[in-house]
């Protein structure tokens, strides 16, 4: 049978313009989200389902002398009460540290003889009703004997400090070094010092940690809100079963931001479902989430920056201390990113950076959008501003003299191999601010500032990262994408559809993407490190091209043209002749032809990131695949009588290489700025002796509509990036420059530079007071 071919309207031949990529179709998850029909982690209910709760430590540092669960067990409706002795293998072991910063400390799933932070899980409850499970929590009687705790990471470094773990309080000590920083510093015309402090920050995704678990055919399945389905292997170890007996399905997340990168509900659901052999749902209370979920690391950053009189940087000496809290989680990697990026996008020929993660009896800190590379922006940008002031240069001039360019070498010793469009982003952001606003009241002052930043995308290079995808053209011409990607709400899955549609010409509405299932999807690695567009996007791009190549052979034969002249668009493959009489085959027909000829319409593809080595002794080597650069500019009004800071205007510009979906790119930038402004001005998960002072969503403050200005976005497309079609990642980068831009604007308004976050109204007044009392150095740094 001869395939049906048909003449269709002519399309421009050999065009390199994209038809799907670069547009912002409101498709896929957007539809369900505005309909309210998307099913999140808490939205499944199974027959006979139980409700799980975690009993948590109320002490930050204590020996457990006894746990009496009898009253809880006797409560009608309680089905199971589990403690450490019920856990087959009571350790959370992250076996992916990649040979660097090997972790010698493991976190217990349930505390055994000792608790190390307030909120640490001690026991588990499963009951027939959520209200009963909550009541049972109150009935578990844990007896504690207080131990001396340590709550300040700098104090934890003292020789006589109480040990959080026997192995010592320093989890990791990274060094990055190049040239001779001490000698260069001694020879510098000017040396600027600065100390900068950041705070614990809560992710505060609107969807609390949640999921359901059940056991079926000897396989434990968890459907949870998670960024990382690969935790299935850890669950298998905890249950002491082989990995093929654990399946994890990721629901579309109601936000994650790194907070669902470590396990949250998974081990507890697994244990309860395994023990009871009944389905179990667990949803953490918001207050529980604020208390016990991981946080962004507070950093203490000390900078010494040496420069020539003309502003050229000669040397940096940087010391970073990050509060890891009670257990390792991802601290080793966060502090590595802090070390690698500590100098920012500036040429520094001589540098010594030390970056330590230190255990305390505070809540564990781990991944949070920006991952160590965002905290240091406040440090390096403040230093640049101070250097400019000292030398009588403008902030723009000092940056122009030192900014990195493509081909430059950064402190880790690697060279930058894609475009660095910092100047373009800066010009755009500054221009966006428009005319300067006038103050609205007598005690009010307006100020402006900007800050640039660079943020890696993709995992540290020594992980030899890879992602797989499986594409299938169905016999009706529709396309299936199967990928282990998890979707945070940033369009991770939808972007894959756009890329596949661009390559294969299948219309978006005929593409389904099945994601986040360890049993049915090829592994993509988790969604973190701004890696999914980079990794899975590349996997889809090259996998779809491979599939297209095999389909093209059939189509080319049928149409009698060379395969590389075919155009794939609008559900068809067609000839690209310029006669205006080009012919085409519908993808459905093509799939059927392939089937008849025994040509597979399915392709499983693995894409591998560039590899490299890092020498931790020398502090030199390859670190990250590439970086996303950007600049933010802010205008604020400071009420000098109340200290209240209002952000009047905010503009953000990033080079994303090539936009896949412009609306989603803007959304990432606007949302990142919102988190960055919260971090700069109000968010603080403060702890006093390990106990959080904000335990409610009413007093852990995230910005509201009224706290936010409209965020103006300008996107630069350099056409250079390591992602698919030269895209760069944009998930984390927008959160970085905010605090530094705001601090700089406040300095402009009041004449004194904040060096501690968040910059609350009370702190602003303190700064103004210090200035009035003459305790402020000429460059605006308070002494």
């Amino acid at each position, binding site marked *: 049978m001869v395939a049906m071919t048909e003449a269709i309207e002519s399309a421009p031949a050999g065009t390199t313009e994209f038809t799907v990529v670069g547009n912002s179709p409101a498709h896929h998850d957007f539809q369900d989200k505005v309909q309210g029909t998307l099913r999140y982690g808490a939205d499944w209910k199974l027959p006979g389902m139980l409700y799980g709760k975690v009993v948590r430590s109320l002490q930050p540092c204590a020996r457990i002398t006894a746990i009496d669960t009898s009253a809880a067990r006797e409560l009608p409706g309680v089905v199971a009460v589990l403690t450490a002795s019920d856990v087959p293998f009571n350790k959370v072991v992250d076996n992916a540290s990649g040979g660097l910063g090997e972790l010698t400390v493991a976190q217990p799933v349930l505390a055994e003889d000792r608790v190390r932070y307030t909120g640490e899980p001690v026991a588990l409850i499963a009951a027939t009703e*959520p*209200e009963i*499970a*909550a*009541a049972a929590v*109150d009935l578990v009687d844990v007896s504690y004997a207080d131990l001396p705790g340590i709550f300040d990471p700098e104090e934890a470094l003292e020789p006589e400090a109480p040990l959080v773990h026997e192995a010592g309080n320093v989890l990791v000590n990274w060094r990055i070094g190049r040239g001779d920083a001490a000698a260069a510093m001694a020879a510098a015309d000017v040396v600027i010092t600065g100390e900068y402090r950041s705070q614990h920050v809560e992710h505060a995704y609107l969807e609390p940690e949640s999921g359901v678990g059940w056991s079926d055919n000897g396989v434990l399945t968890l459907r949870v809100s998670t960024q990382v389905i690969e935790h299935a292997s850890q669950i298998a170890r905890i249950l002491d079963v082989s990995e093929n007996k654990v399946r994890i399905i990721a629901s579309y997340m109601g936000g994650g931001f790194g907070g669902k990168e470590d396990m949250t509900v998974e081990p507890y659901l697994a244990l309860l479902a395994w023990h009871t052999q009944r389905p179990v749902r667990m949803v953490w209370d918001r*207050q529980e989430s604020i208390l016990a979920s991981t946080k962004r690391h507070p950093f203490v950053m000390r900078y010494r920056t040496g420069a020539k009189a003309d502003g050229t940087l000669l040397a940096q000496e940087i010391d970073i201390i990050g509060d890891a809290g009670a257990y390792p989680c991802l601290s080793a990697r966060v502090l590595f990113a802090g070390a690698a990026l500590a100098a920012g996008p500036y040429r520094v020929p001589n540098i010594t950076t030390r970056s330590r993660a230190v255990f305390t009896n505070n809540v564990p800190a781990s991944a949070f959008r920006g991952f160590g590379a965002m905290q240091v922006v406040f440090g390096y940008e403040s230093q640049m501003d101070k250097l400019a002031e000292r030398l009588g240069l403008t902030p723009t001039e000092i940056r122009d003299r030192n900014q990195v360019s493509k081909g430059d070498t950064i402190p880790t010793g690697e060279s930058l191999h894609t475009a660095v469009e910092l100047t373009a982003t800066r010009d755009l952001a500054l221009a966006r601010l428009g005319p300067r606003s006038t103050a609205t009241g007598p*005690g009010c002052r307006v100020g402006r500032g900007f800050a640039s930043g660079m943020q890696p995308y993709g995992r540290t290079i020594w992980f030899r990262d890879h992602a797989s995808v499986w594409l299938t053209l169905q016999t009706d011409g529709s396309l299936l994408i199967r990928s282990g990607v998890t979707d945070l709400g940033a369009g991770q899955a939808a972007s894959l559809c756009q890329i596949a549609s661009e390559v294969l010409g299948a219309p978006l509405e005929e593409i389904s993407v099945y994601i986040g299932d360890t049993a049915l999807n090829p592994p993509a690695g988790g969604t973190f490190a701004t890696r999914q567009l980079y990794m899975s996007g590349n996997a889809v791009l090259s996998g779809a091209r491979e599939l297209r190549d095999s389909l093209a052979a059939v189509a080319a034969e049928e149409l009698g043209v060379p395969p590389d002249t075919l155009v794939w668009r609008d559900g068809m493959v067609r000839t690209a002749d310029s006669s205006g009489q080009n012919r085409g085959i519908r993808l459905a027909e093509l799939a059927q032809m392939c089937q008849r000829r025994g040509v597979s319409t399915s392709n499983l593809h693995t894409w591998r990131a560039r590899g490299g080595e890092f020498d931790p002794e020398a502090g030199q080597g390859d670190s990250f695949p590439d970086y996303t650069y950007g600049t933010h500019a802010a205008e604020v009004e400071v009420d000098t*009588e*109340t*200290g*209240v800071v209002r952000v009047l205007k905010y503009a953000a510009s990033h080079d994303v290489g090539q936009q896949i979906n412009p609306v989603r790119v803007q959304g990432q930038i606007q949302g990142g700025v919102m988190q960055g402004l919260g971090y700069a001005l*109000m968010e603080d998960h*403060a702890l006093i002796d390990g106990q959080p*002072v*904000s335990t*409610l969503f*009413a*007093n852990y*403050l995230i*910005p*509201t*509509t*009224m*706290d936010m200005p409209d965020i103006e976005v300008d996107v630069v497309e350099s056409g250079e990036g390591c992602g698919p079609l030269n895209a760069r990642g944009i998930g984390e980068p927008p959160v970085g420059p905010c605090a530094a831009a705001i601090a700089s604007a406040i300095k402009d308004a009041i004449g004194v530079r904040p060096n501690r976050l968040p910059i*609350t*109204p*009370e702190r602003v*007044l303190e700064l103004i007071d210090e200035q009035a009392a003459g305790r402020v150095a000429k460059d605006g740094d308070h002494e």
Partner: protein
Amino acid sequence: MTGAFEYQLADSWEEAVELHRIWGEDGKILAGGQSLVPMLNLRLVQPAGLIDINPIGAVEPRVADDRLVLSALTRHQDLLRSPLVREHCPILAEGAAQIGNVRVRARGTVGGSMCHADPSGEIPCMVLALDGQLIAHSPRGQRVIDAERFLRSYLTTDLAEDELLTEIRLPIRKHGQGWAFLETVRRYSDFATVEVAATATLSSDAHTVTALRVVVGGVADRPLILSDELLSAAVGGTGRDDELRAVGAAAAATVSPESDVHASADYRRRLTEVLTYRALGKAIERGRAESKGAGV
């Protein structure tokens, strides 16, 4: 997850009073529920009985004997929407607009806020500034309580165990009286760090400030009325900047707030000074406009 409780409906104030008597301290009155239900959800309070007085319903705000009469069940949003409130006690609309969010204002009640007696709550501060009276009912009859007496301490009122707040009466605004309610919050929609409610009365020629009343919230265990002595720098004056600043400074010197997670004592004192000064300025400006008949 709330603990178990008996749920009781009251269709009338009489029924509510009776149920309140029966349950005693084991029972809690459920009005708007915007403070109580979070505490129930967090298991901070676990009453045996919950007496829902919502079915009683609120009569519309009305004016009687030169007083604005509000049912205890008047919702915050009614203060914003009632033309009568805007005309006779406009400060209530100004302050209510700063309460929580649209959902809190839709359910939260003025009586509930008074009984909750949060020292930084907007309603207690304004009711005290207006020198309001609170009507309580018990099996023993009715009692009229001055706001100053009603607000005893942190989350504590003058109500006896068997008394229920049913009504609030507020003197209506006189000619030439201006008002202002100002607060600072750490984040929009939050409880105030410090708040100030002020009224200012001007002479008929709009020249002289003849009377002031200022209440500061968030600086003690209850909202504080600034004494006549503290206000003396501005009463009899013309509302000059230095007069108002003097009152602000005197107020700041008087209050002795505590430090907590939201703000230090010192910062609260600073805010007391600034907000008092600014509220006075705004109230006097409005009073002047009112007395000139210009309206605002």
